């Protein structure tokens, strides 16, 4: 049996004494796209942040294994170097740091981690150009400061562009669809779809089913109040779209009663 890319076992976590994640189990194998859907406040984004290494959250119980290694023990940069990538729901604007300068440092940090030689400016520009084309990014974006003055759509496309450049093994997309019009959504989804292969795993977090029309998941999980309450195939997303999250809540209430 091959080692899963990601194994979340009985994860409990919170912030400032408040429980947010209340016991999650999830296994993602290479080649799989999993989607977590859920209402606002269900803990979806918290889970994404924990996977990326945000230290604001306290892990009270459970573990997360990444390729069999303890993910929670790794610093955020080590996770990135090991192949974890999170596309931010709200990409941070960083005035004064140029996109190229930032990505150059990121690419070469990751290469150094794997004992590879740094890419020179020409090789990097070639790589950026190729991936920018994929995401239909305006040329001047690379010359600008990281996310500064980017439109909502540009920010999200730039996240997927970074993902393409950094070539991760496990990708978390945290509500990448929020704030995107249908054209931008399609571009972003195409970017993600070209990266799908049998070595990579994806966790696509979304509030709406719409994104999953374009990035078709293998597995759909419904998260409510810090727990995964239902799991199924892609048809679960459609069912949710049809009946709304109250349907899950009612089923839960029914099961409890």
């Amino acid at each position, binding site marked *: 049996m091959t080692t899963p890319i990601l194994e979340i076992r009985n994860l409990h976590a919170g912030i400032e004494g408040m429980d947010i994640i209340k016991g999650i189990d999830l296994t993602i194998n290479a080649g799989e796209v999993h989607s977590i859907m859920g209402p606002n406040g269900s803990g979806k984004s918290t889970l994404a942040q924990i996977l990326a*290494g945000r230290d604001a959250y306290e892990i009270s119980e459970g573990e997360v294994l990444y390729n069999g290694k303890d993910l929670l023990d790794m610093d955020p*940069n080590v996770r990135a170097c090991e192949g974890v990538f999170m596309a931010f729901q709200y990409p941070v604007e*960083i005035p004064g740091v140029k996109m190229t300068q*930032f990505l150059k440092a990121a690419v070469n940090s990751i290469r150094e981690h794997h004992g590879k030689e740094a890419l020179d400016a020409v090789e990097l520009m070639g790589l950026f150009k190729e991936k920018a084309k994929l995401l239909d990014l305006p040329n001047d974006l690379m010359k600008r400061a990281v996310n500064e003055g980017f439109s909502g759509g540009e920010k999200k496309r730039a996240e997927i562009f970074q993902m393409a450049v*950094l070539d991760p093994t496990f990708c978390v997309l945290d509500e990448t669809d929020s704030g995107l019009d249908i054209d931008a959504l399609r571009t972003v989804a195409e970017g993600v779809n070209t990266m799908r292969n049998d070595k990579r795993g994806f966790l696509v977090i979304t509030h709406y089913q719409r994104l999953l029309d374009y990035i078709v998941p293998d597995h759909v999980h419904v998260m409510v109040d810090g727990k995964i309450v239902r799991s199924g195939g892609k048809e679960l997303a459609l069912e949710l779209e049809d009946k709304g999250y109250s349907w899950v809540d009612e089923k839960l209430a029914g099961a409890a009663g």
Partner: protein
Amino acid sequence: MTTMTQNQTMRDNSWLLTELPESVIEHDAARMPKWLADIRRSAFRQFTADGLPSAKQEKWRQINLRPIRETAFGLPADGATDVSEAEVVGHSLPFVDAVRLVFVNGRYAAELSDARAMPSGVTVQTIREALKSESTILETHLTKYVNADDDPFVSLNTALLDDGVVVHIEKNITCDTPIYLLCITTAADGPIITHPRNLIIAEDGAQATIVEDYVGTDGEVYLTNAVTELVVGEDAHLHHYLLERESDAAFNVSTLTAYHKTSSTLSSHTVLLGGALVRNNVNPIIDGEHCHSLLNGLYIGRGKQHIDNLMRVEHRKPNCESRQFYKGILTDESRGVFAGRIIVSRDAQKIDAVQSNQSLLLSEAARANSMPQLEIYADDVKCTHGATIGELDEEALFYLESRGLAEPQAKAMLVHAFAGESLERMNLPVVQEALLQMLTQRLPFTSAANV
């Protein structure tokens, strides 16, 4: 090269700043024109009457001058210096096309300078040379602009002014060659005090770039007390750079006064890196309409450095703009102070004045103070001021780390970005690149990181 003079023998005796022998002033008077000897005497009387400032005086409230008060400074001796060409090159910014005037311990060092032929219409002399020449520029302008009120350091500089540069750019002349003043203070028998004094006159329509650079031998205690007066003629544009990178044990007090005529532009760039105690006074006097005055500053404190900035922007005429952008990066137990005063006279309507001071604190013990002071007597003006004091942005830091950058590298990138804004306002690539390297050496996190 120089034999021991009576002058030197006398000056070898250390003297306390507060007990400055009047005989020095009188001794020098013998080789100076009467007008200058009189100015020096009068300034000396002012200095002895005022004494060193006390913390009760508003302009000096945030700075503890005790280390200066308690040091027995001596005046530098005239004569040969033991600074080698190699040392000068080591200190020097790598200009390829600049006129370089080197001062060692406050005295012009001709043999170390590179006073190449200036374009016609541009005169660069030392004060001592100018006094010997026919030029009346010194007598006409010297001390006419700088404000000595509440500032005994200015009085002291005037009382003891003896060397520095006089630059004259004639009408409508653009001087493309930067004029670079490198002031080096080296080890002496005891702590010395120097009084560099510069006068830069840009006549109507003239343009020039002046770079003042203060350096010293590592670990030496001394006090540089510099005063520069600029006159920016009608439609003239002066670019002025002040780089303070003194020894970490030294003191530096500098005063820059710029007198603006109609439609003139000043771009003042100040970078303060060295010194245990640093006071930076910048005072544009905007006495013509349609002027633009930019005060761009960056100060970086570490160890126990205290860096104190006092801006005094005087708007005397209507329809002008002034911009103050000062940024501080403070680590260890350093302290940065910014006091920015904007004074708008009653008739100076339609003034657009902006003041911004941002401080980045990189350690628990570092401190920053920011004090905007607006004195506005006109009723139709736009004055905005803002101050921020903060740490590195946690969100930005996490974003960078989550892309593979190790924490020190991510921090370095953010610190550089913060400083970068100040560098981008400059327009001398040599200075910008040199500063970038200096920042990398000085800032925490950055020396290890490849940014």
